[in-house]
């Protein structure tokens, strides 16, 4: 029995961490957030590490690892608030294509980091603002909002009945418009479909669900990493900042804030590990665990984001230390792919507690 990361998984984490520290420091994140450049160089570097092909089988040019390995990468990306299309392109889209048994050559291209797939499934999860996409006679119409990745080459689109379709970003009749959010480390967009030729990928709800659950686990892992970094920054600041002739971390009011963050966050690590593990190895718990990991990390993450900022005083509120990048990342993860209340309702439903 071993509940924890293997030596290979720790190595994977270290490798990605080293790469991000060198190639995607906060200064780079800031330039991307300001729109001075985009995330393509980072993604290229991650492709050299094999990250886009993490879940894609070796026979197709990928690495053939599992959801827990992907969660470790997501956590590391969250820790560094890295701009990268990881969750959609490296996790959700490959799972959809692999689950449907299609597009093996595209998977090879994706594994090289040469093709990005965005995810348009907000309306299948819970439609807002009357958005929605319909499929008839081989064509998609309607619109999808808060689609993951405004720089993608193609999109997976989910209709309300959990069917999945694939369109190229350049398909005639498809309009794409960037939707700015508070989180400038990753992009979202709106897709408008005017009779767009689309390829049916899957009508099997199991494919949709596996893709969605894995995506939720990745959001949870991303928040775990981001919250851990916010906590680490708060603790470091509390050890160094002096007021009233003492470092502020020696004041109980501050020490207890730090302790509360750690006490809330530490069990989240085990929750995320297990939820990720369940996706590949405990199918009967996969849905419930994905929902709980997503919702619980949303709550704890929100508390840590707020509290870590408070520990920094006015400095936390400024752009200078950049703590707000973590605050906003955690805030975005909370809403995307299902807000906590919505996801908890699903957790109750999958246990048969309600209709």
């Amino acid at each position: 029995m071993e509940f924890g990361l293997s030596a290979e998984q720790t190595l994977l984490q270290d490798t990605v961490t080293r790469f991000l520290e060198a190639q995607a420091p906060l200064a780079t994140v800031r330039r991307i957030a300001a729109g001075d450049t985009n995330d393509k160089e980072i993604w290229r570097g991650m492709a050299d590490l094999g990250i886009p092909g993490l879940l894609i089988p070796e026979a197709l040019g990928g690495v053939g690892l599992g959801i827990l390995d992907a969660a470790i990468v997501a956590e590391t990306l969250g820790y560094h608030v890295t701009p990268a299309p990881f969750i959609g392109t490296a996790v959700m889209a490959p799972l959809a294509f692999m689950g449907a048994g299609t597009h093996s050559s595209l998977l090879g291209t994706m594994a090289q980091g040469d093709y990005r797939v965005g995810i348009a499934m907000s309306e299948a999860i819970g439609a807002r603002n009357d958005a929605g996409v319909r499929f008839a006679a081989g064509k998609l119409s309607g619109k999808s909002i808060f689609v993951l990745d405004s720089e993608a080459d193609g999109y997976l689109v989910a209709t309300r009945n959990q069917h999945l379709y694939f369109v190229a970003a350049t398909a005639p009749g498809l309009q794409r418009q960037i939707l700015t959010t508070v989180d400038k480390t990753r992009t979202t967009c709106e897709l408008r479909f005017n009779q767009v030729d689309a390829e049916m990928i899957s009508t099997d709800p199991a494919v949709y669900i596996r893709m969605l659950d894995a995506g939720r686990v990745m959001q949870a892992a991303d928040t775990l990493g981001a919250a851990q970094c916010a906590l680490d920054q708060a603790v470091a600041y509390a050890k160094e900042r002096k007021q009233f002739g003492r470092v502020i971390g020696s004041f109980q009011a501050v020490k207890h804030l730090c302790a509360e963050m750690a006490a809330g966050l530490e069990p989240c690590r085990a929750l995320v590990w297990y939820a990720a593990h369940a996706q590949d190895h405990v199918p009967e718990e996969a849905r419930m665990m994905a929902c709980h990991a997503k919702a619980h990390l949303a709550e704890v993450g929100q508390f840590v984001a707020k509290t870590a900022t408070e520990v920094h005083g006015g400095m936390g509120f400024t752009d200078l230390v950049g703590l707000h990048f973590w605050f906003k990342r955690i805030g975005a993860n909370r809403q995307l792919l299902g807000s906590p209340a919505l996801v908890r309702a699903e957790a109750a439903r999958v246990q048969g507690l309600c209709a």
Partner: protein
Amino acid sequence: MDLSYGSEYGVFRQQVRDFIEANRDQAPAAGARGPAGLAWQKLLIDNGYHSRTVPKAYGGYGAAPDILASRIIAEEFSAAQLSTGLGGQGISMLTPMLLEMGSEAQKLQFIQPTILGEMVWCQGYSEPGAGSDLASLTTKAELDGDEWVINGQKIWTSTAQSADWIFCLVRTEPQAPKHQGISFLLFRMDTPGIEVRPLVDMTGDANFNEVFFTDVRVPKHQIVGERGQGWQVANAILGHERGSLAPPDAAENRLKGIIKLMETETLDGQRIMDNPIFRDRLMKLQGASLAMRFNDMRLLSARINPGQDARLAGLIVKLQGTELRHEIEGFAIDVMGEIGLAYEDNPYLRGNGSWQYQYMYYLGLIIGGGTSQIQKNIIGERGLDLPREPKVTAN
């Protein structure tokens, strides 16, 4: 990640299940003493389901330490909602401490009757002036020939009213720095000079007491460790106590109970389970409770795989576990609304009144064994390496 316990444990698990199947009708209610409780306790020890690793010479089952086997026993008994035998401070704290720091004679004298439930202990640490700041305790013991003479007062001493013996912290070296002047004594509660006054707590029960010592004479050899080492001895047990106050299995069983409650209780004719607000609160608690379950698995794993670092995961357990449990019990009361207020002989009582009782009981556990605030100090200082409070200079 490898969650299997290995095939040899499959056989073991089956044995535990067979035992439970064959004997479950003899099981008393959890924690019950009385003849049925003692007989069950003996049956458990004889079969290796209690005091499993306590050596045979001291009355235990004598198995080699095997964390997974112990875990499987706990899992199966919890799943069957069956009493795992007696607990209490003698069994869960004093016995492991004696095994670690007691003399051979002490082990032979005390462990067997303690684990059989024939010798009941209480823990005499806290004093009116020494709670969180335990090391400032002032109950003193002076050597007079071959006897310690004890004078002073303890408070919050759980089960002192029914205990046969007490393990007690006393000041023996008044000149030494406060942590180095304490000794750890064992003595009978019927020794002349001991007066026990029960204190009624908020549940309405008198679970704890004030204990007064007036010239209580105790044989010199009834000390654990050396003179002045009492603080180290006591700390060895505090670790045991903190980890065991709010086990995740028990919290999950309570959540299962709440699910049943929500499926039967109604508000304006609608099942509470069909009310999305209550369902959302249930799911929040379930998520938090799952996090604690897997945190516990991580701790278990770290004990088997010494390379794993789970220090912080261990430090947060007392704080998070007791706070969560209190919240769970309080939620059940909200599910019932005013019916949740029912207590004692009220005809609308649900679950024997255990929801209100546990709601209060767990507030006691939030305070006892090191308060939540003290836990946060510990997490901050030992877990996150934040500086300690500056010492207040005497004035």
